[in-house]
Structure formats: C-alpha cells, structure tokens
C-alpha cells in the first residue's frame, strides 16, 4: 500500500471516452508497463432518513459506501469531509438493516472500471467512470508502492504524471495537504475517489438539466 494520486482525465478533443482510454493505455504500454488484470471502484450514496432528521434538527448528510477491488474484503463508508469507516464487506448487509436511518439514493451508483498496469513500483489504473449505462469520464489512479508518506514522494509522483499525462497533469490532491507526514492509508485513496465521483456528478448535472 503506497501513496496514491487519483485524478480526472478530460476527454481528448474529437474523441470518445473509449478512444481516450485507449490512447492512455497505449501510452502506458509504450512506456513498458505490464497489464495486470482489471480493477473496479464503486460508490453508492445514502441519505440520512427524514424521520431522524426532524427530531435532531440537522441538515441531511450524505454518506457514501464504496468498494475497491484492490481491497476485496473491505467496505468503505465515508461522509463528505467527515470520518471514513473501513469495515468488512458484510457492512452492505448492515446498511440494509439500517434503512430507518440511511436510505439509498435512487440511481446514484457510480463506478469506474478499467485495466490495471504495473510499471516498476508504480501501479497505474485507467478507468472509465460510468453512472448507470453511460460513460461520464475517465479516472487515472497512480500508486507508488514503496513510499508511505505523501509529502515525501509527491515530486517523484508528479514527475511520473508529467511523463504520462503531459499537459493534463493534476495538482496535488487535497488529502496530501492534510496528511503532512502521516502514513498514507487506503481511506485516503477512497476519499480521492469520492471527490472525483462528486466532481463528475456535478459536471454531468448541468448538461443533463439543460437537455430537459
């Protein structure tokens, strides 16, 4: 488990999502990266139930329940800006029991799927973000396994990202700034995915609303 940077890759001009993903994977293969199966990260949104809201007089909070194929036995439950709970996959069943407190938002499931590449100690995952049936964007995750402190290896990661993504290189993820020199954890990766998914959801909402 190393330091991970998750970023969104904008779709190349005049190309589809699928074609841009292919361009990226080709670039990786040219670099000498080896294909190592596939990956999947999914996220489901839960509202706090109306009944509990009224009695406590709080604004409704969103909770995200996520899974990551890199940690197949775990389930991540996150609040925005809030704590992150790492539980066993049984947690999904528990959520069904907690219907009275948390209700699943309809058609809110968003996920990214793609191929996993290994290049030296780097793990690169290029995925297509889908919400329902439609592809909504591209996620690029780069993990540097040997290092566990984000601030230590950010310049090194940045150099790799510059080589790989060129002008689309992202800035440092916000989780890096908060962590200082603490040990990086899988939860930090999930927070980054959650932020990415929220960003993509918001982006998509505008044109969708326009069409309607």
């Amino acid at each position, binding site marked *: 488990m190393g330091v991970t940077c998750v970023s969104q890759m904008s779709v190349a001009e005049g190309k589809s999502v699928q074609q841009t993903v292919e361009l990226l994977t080709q670039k990786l293969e040219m670099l000498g990266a080896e294909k190592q199966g596939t990956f999947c990260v999914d996220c489901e949104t839960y509202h706090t139930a109306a009944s509990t809201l009224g009695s406590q007089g709080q604004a409704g909070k969103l909770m995200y329940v996520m899974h990551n194929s890199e940690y197949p036995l775990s389930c991540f439950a996150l609040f925005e800006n809030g704590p992150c709970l790492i539980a066993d996959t049984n947690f999904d069943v528990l959520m069904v029991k907690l219907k009275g407190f948390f209700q699943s938002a309809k058609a809110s499931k968003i996920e990214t799927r793609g191929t996993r590449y290994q290049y*030296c*100690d780097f793990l690169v995952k290029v995925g297509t973000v889908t919400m329902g049936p439609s592809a909504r964007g591209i996620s690029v995750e780069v993990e540097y396994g*040997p290092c*566990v402190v984000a601030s230590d*290896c950010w*310049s*090194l990661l940045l150099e790799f990202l510059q080589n790989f993504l060129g002008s689309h290189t992202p800035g440092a993820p916000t989780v890096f700034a908060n962590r200082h020199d603490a040990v990086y954890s899988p939860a930090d990766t999930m927070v980054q995915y959650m932020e990415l998914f929220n960003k993509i959801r918001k982006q998509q909402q505008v044109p969708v609303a326009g069409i309607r």
Partner: protein
Amino acid sequence: MADVLSVGVNLEAFAQAISAIQALRSSVSRVFDCLKDGMRNKETLEGREKAFIAHFQDNLHSVNRDLNELERLSNLVGKPSENHPLHNSGLLSLDPVQDKTPLYSQLLQAYKWSNKLQYHAGLASGLLNQQSLKRSANQMGVSAKRRPKAQPTTLVLPPQYVDDVISRIDRMFPEMSIHLSRPNGTSAMLLVTLGKVLKVIVVMRSLFIDRTIVKGYTENVYTEDGKLDIWSKSNYQVFQKVTDHATTALLHYQLPQMPDVVVRSFMTWLRSYIKLFQAPCQRCGKFLQDGLPPTWRDFRTLEAFHDTCRQ
C-alpha cells in the same frame, strides 16, 4: 598393549639371548686366540698341524653352535616395535623386498613433507595476521601504522561490547531506530527502521556485518513464527536495488582492526536514504529513471545518484 605384553613374556628369552651373545663373543675370541697362538708345543710338524686344525675346527664349531643358539633365541624375543620413531609404520622398514615396494622410504618422504608444510603454514599465518584484510585501497597504510598492536581476532568480542556500540549508534541518529535481538546464539541481528522510508535487517557476526536486506516501511519483516525474515527480498524493485547497494557498501566499508567504525560508517551511509524519495539525482536532476528513484548514495559525499548516473 600387545607389544608390551609379549615383551614381558619373552623377558626370559632376552636373558638367554644375552648370555648366548656372551658365549658367542667368547667362542669367537677363542678362535682368534687359537689363530694368534699358532702351532706349537708339538714334536713333529705333522702333529703340530693336526692338533692346530682340530683345535681350530673345535673352536669354529662352537662359534657355529653359539650362533645357531643366538638365532633361535632371537626369534623368541620378538620385534621391539615401539622403539621405532614412526611406531607401527616403522615396521615397514623391516620389509626385506625394499626395491619392489619402497613404502618405507616414501613414508619418510611424506612425513618430511608434511612437517615442512606445517612449518611454512605457521609462518604464513603469522605473516597474514599482521596484514590488514582490507579489500578497498584507501587508508591501508594509515590504519596499519595507527594500530600496530591490533588484535587479529575481532570476531570474538563480548556481546556486551556489541550492545554498547549499537546503542551508541542508535542514540547518534534520532531518525533511525535500531532494535537488536539475538535469536540464534551470540550473533546479533538488527532491525533498523529509518524514518518512515525503509526497514533494514542487518545480520551481524560479532561486530562484522554479514548480510543486509532492505525492505519497505510497510513490508513484513517477520516470518510466520515471529522471527526476523533474513532471506526473502523486498517486493519493490527500488528496495531490491537499495539492498544491492547496501551489500556493495558492506564490501566498501572494511576495517578489520576497528569494526565499530565500520558499523558506524555503514549506518551513516544508510541514514542518507531518509531522502530516498525526496532527493533528485545530482547528475541528471531528475527523480525517475526507468521508473526508479536515485537509489545510489555516494560513499563519501552521500549524494544521491541513479544507478546509471553515478560514474
């Protein structure tokens, strides 16, 4: 044991043999007396000759008789083999067919050879102990002059001394924690944790470092039964490379007379890896080359280089 016993049994034969020798000597001297006296005290020449010959014959007969007796006794006495310098192998010298099987002479030759060999080996080991075993060139003369009376066997330092040296080094570098254990007898094993960057397993023999394995900060350094895993290598290429470089460093830092200095220099060098992911290469200025950060640290300046940039 058998020899001693048989000698004890034949002591009587010995005594008889000695008296037989005395008898032989006296009979031989009688022969010469008779010859010295010549022919005399007889009237006629013929009578004189006859008497002389008869007398001479008698004497020779008695010599012959005594000789036979001695021979018979000598068989009874047996071989006093313990008197040979080569013990039982000395019996080979009694082999009558010397020309066909020159075993004994060959044996003596071999014995001389092995004696010589032992002598020369002793001289050589004496000379070698005076010389330093240093494998790298610099400071050779200096160290030899500075410590002329250095002990040749620094391998047998007391464990307490090793503990002291290690704990002093531990206190020297705050970002480095050293955990010493002795799972197998007196040889110490160190688990060095360098910041949040890497862990190093150091296998010591007294104060000499035998082997190092570099692993990631989060990697498991223990085997299933809770012992330090000194055999398996890191899963990450960068730490495999650092392991190689650390092994090179072990060969570089060699000073048999002052093993504590060696350990300290090695740890100082190792400490420079605290910036493994943060320091760009001093030659090409980049972080990555073939997907690896600068893994080499110069032995004197401790500057970071890529493996291929370091010349």
